[in-house]
């Protein structure tokens, strides 16, 4: 994964700090908006992680610069002023950036990229008087605006999530990367595991788990609609489930809630002699057979118990989670995400009465990014607001006496109490 290949989805980091996912299709033109366009063929075999300047549609040049990603453009104390150091004294010069019309003149004179930046820099009368910090900030800001550069990065789930958070956080239920990461650990996701999940995001949770599975194990997606939302999975063609009846052991298996919870309502599958069928009838039959086998595999796994139940859904959690719990093996984690703590508070209260989950706990993890410019270190001035939290607990098996009297009895508070309470009450 160190060079771009044809067919790849590539995550383009742009000088503005924004991102774009492009697909490398032979002979196509890759359009990066105001940062220029370049032919896909030119990109094939370029190393990832380097920054390139677009010279023309068929020519790019590797440059030393790093894309602007750690510099804030938002307000900072005195940021609109030019601060200069004279000896030990700090002087203010007010806002003295070039006017847009001056910059336009430079641009129309045909200057581009680095050369344009240099010109603007020279024209800025106070440039030499600036502190190192404000110089760095000024250059980065100008670069972000006028450079035709990009930095190609391989697609990862982390980058997919970043993209959604930038463009439309509601689609990922306002989930921040630290929370997603925490879900994977708390759910004990590991190569070879088999996980029952609900994923209402455009497959962000799904791809995150798949990255951890490698080529072993399986994700079963229980979806509430006729078809699941696999929008993000398309950037990872290796995992995309298909109706391809030749496929073996797919990493992603699908089941809708009706087939999951009410198998008795599934219409009986009528076996046929495939060899006696022809053409589309045969193809159709084999596809149905493949789906039926998938369904049977999932139902079998439901009986064996999954290695974790992981839920990212806007269905009433108090309603859906206890039903999914039935399919978790003993001692496996339950992890539930919600974009509102209130939903998980209600779920906790319900689970406290349901004895099948040990120590249900709500966790809130929040990342805080910093600017790390020398001498100017501080958390970024603004950040996305996240309200998402997760609940985790461990599926346990209440003792046989309790199990014998059935589910209804379990929901009532039982006389037998956990060890720690025995002495406390």
């Amino acid at each position, binding site marked *: 994964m160190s060079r771009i290949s044809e067919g790849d989805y590539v995550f383009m980091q742009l000088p503005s700090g924004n991102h774009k996912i492009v697909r490398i299709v032979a002979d196509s033109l890759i359009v990066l908006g105001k940062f220029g366009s370049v032919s896909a063929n030119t990109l094939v075999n370029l190393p990832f992680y380097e920054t390139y300047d677009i010279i023309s549609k068929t020519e790019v040049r590797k440059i030393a610069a790093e894309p602007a990603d750690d510099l804030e453009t938002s*307000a*900072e*104390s*005195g*940021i*609109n*002023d030019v*601060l200069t150091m004279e000896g*030990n*004294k*700090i002087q*203010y010069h*007010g806002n003295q950036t070039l006017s847009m019309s001056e910059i336009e003149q430079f641009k129309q004179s045909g200057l581009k990229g680095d050369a344009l930046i240099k010109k603007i820099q020279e024209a800025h009368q106070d440039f030499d008087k600036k502190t190192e910090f404000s110089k760095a900030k000024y250059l980065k800001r100008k670069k972000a605006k006028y450079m035709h550069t990009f930095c190609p990065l391989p697609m990862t789930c982390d980058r997919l999530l970043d993209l959604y958070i930038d463009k439309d*956080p509601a689609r990922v239920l306002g989930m921040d990367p630290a929370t997603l990461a925490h879900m994977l650990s708390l759910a004990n996701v590991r190569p070879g595991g088999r996980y029952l999940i609900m994923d209402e995001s455009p497959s962000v949770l799904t791809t995150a788990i798949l990255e951890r599975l490698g080529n072993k194990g399986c994700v079963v997606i229980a979806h*509430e*609609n*006729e078809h699941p939302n696999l929008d993000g999975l398309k950037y990872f063609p290796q995992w995309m489930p298909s109706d391809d009846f030749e496929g073996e052991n797919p990493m992603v298996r699908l089941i*809708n*809630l*009706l087939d999951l*919870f*009410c198998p008795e*309502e599934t*219409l009986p599958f009528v076996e046929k002699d495939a060899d006696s069928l022809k053409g589309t009838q045969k193809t159709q039959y084999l596809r149905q057979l493949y789906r039926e086998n998938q369904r049977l595999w999932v139902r079998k796994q439901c009986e064996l118990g999954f290695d974790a139940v992981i839920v990212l859904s*806007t*269905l*009433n959690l108090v*309603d*859906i989670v206890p*039903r999914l719990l039935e399919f978790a093996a003993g001692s496996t984690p339950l992890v539930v995400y919600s*974009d*509102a*703590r*209130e*939903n998980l508070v*209600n779920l906790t209260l319900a689970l406290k009465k349901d004895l099948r989950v040990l120590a249900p706990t709500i966790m809130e993890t929040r990342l*805080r*990014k910093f600017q790390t410019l020398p*001498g*100017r*270190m*501080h*958390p*970024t*001035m*603004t*950040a*996305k*607001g*996240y*309200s998402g939290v997760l609940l985790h607990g461990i599926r346990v098996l209440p003792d046989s006496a309790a199990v014998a009297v059935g589910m209804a009895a379990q929901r009532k508070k039982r006389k037998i109490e956990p060890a720690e309470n025995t002495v406390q009450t």
Partner: protein
Amino acid sequence: MFLNSKRIIEEGDLVLIWISRTVIRPVYLKKDEALQTKFGHFLHNDMIGRPFGSQISATQGRGFVHVLAPTPELWALSLPHRTQIVYSPDSSYIIHRLQIRPDSKVVEAGTGSGALTHALARAVGTDGTIFTYEYHEDRHMQAVKEFKDHELSDIITCTHRNVCEDGFQIEKPTLATAVFLDLPAPWTAIPKLFEGEILNRKEAVHICCFSPCIEQVSKTVKVLEEHGFQSIEMVENQAKRWEGHESMVRSVDEALDVLRDVRKRRNMGIERRKRKRLVSEVEAEQSEEDKKLLRGDYDNPVVYNPWGKGERVKEGDDGYKWAPVSTIEPEIKNHTSYLTFALLPPLQD
């Protein structure tokens, strides 16, 4: 204006016209004048004589605004952001920790937008004084004018000065017991506090330095220690704003019924296609409802649609179940500045 409890709006009053959370317009009321907004035309005459807090309707249309009495917080919200302001979670904690009381004397540098100065003036009231310093001349002039307009000139003494170089001394002693420094290099200003009659050394003096970068804090702490300050403590104040909303409660049984509905319609479609091939006229015998179902269209009112999918459902609409949730503002103030507090004990005679 800022310091009284006026109940009725009069001509000449400064009012803050609340148009929306993000649009608050300061207006001095004058007979026969009007406020023009993109939401309508609002007559000053409709406001004068009414109580503060009144809802005023536009001369035409359904728009309305609220006419509010000025407070430092509302004033800060109404400011076009000339420079970064000290936001209320910070300013309120600064005032609290600096133990500012009615009659306190306070030194502030720089004045900046004057947002904190307003809050300080409210805290000291008419018996106290704020001595505020600003290097930037335009900002100084703007602040002087504003404090005059806001009838706070008796409480606030503005000085145009680079305190880091020229110190705090003015014609009269300030004798402050609280100092607030919002400067790029507070450590250069701290020694200047000891030149002239700036601090009231008979009382404990509380100081707060407000710096965005951690390196500024290190330098500040060092210089504070060198100058005899004690109980040095640095804190950050992280504030988040939440709103209450109602979120639709969608049950699993409803989800299952949606799937059953889809399955039923699909099966009927299969049956229909089968039958069509055999006896096409059988179709004519179907009921109207079954016919509708066969169309399999979500716009079709017969489709089971428990959550108003594709319809315009407003939060809290009857016919659906709702649960309270909180949502955070989409962009939070992740960092404002580090607040370094310290205490200078009184000099003993």
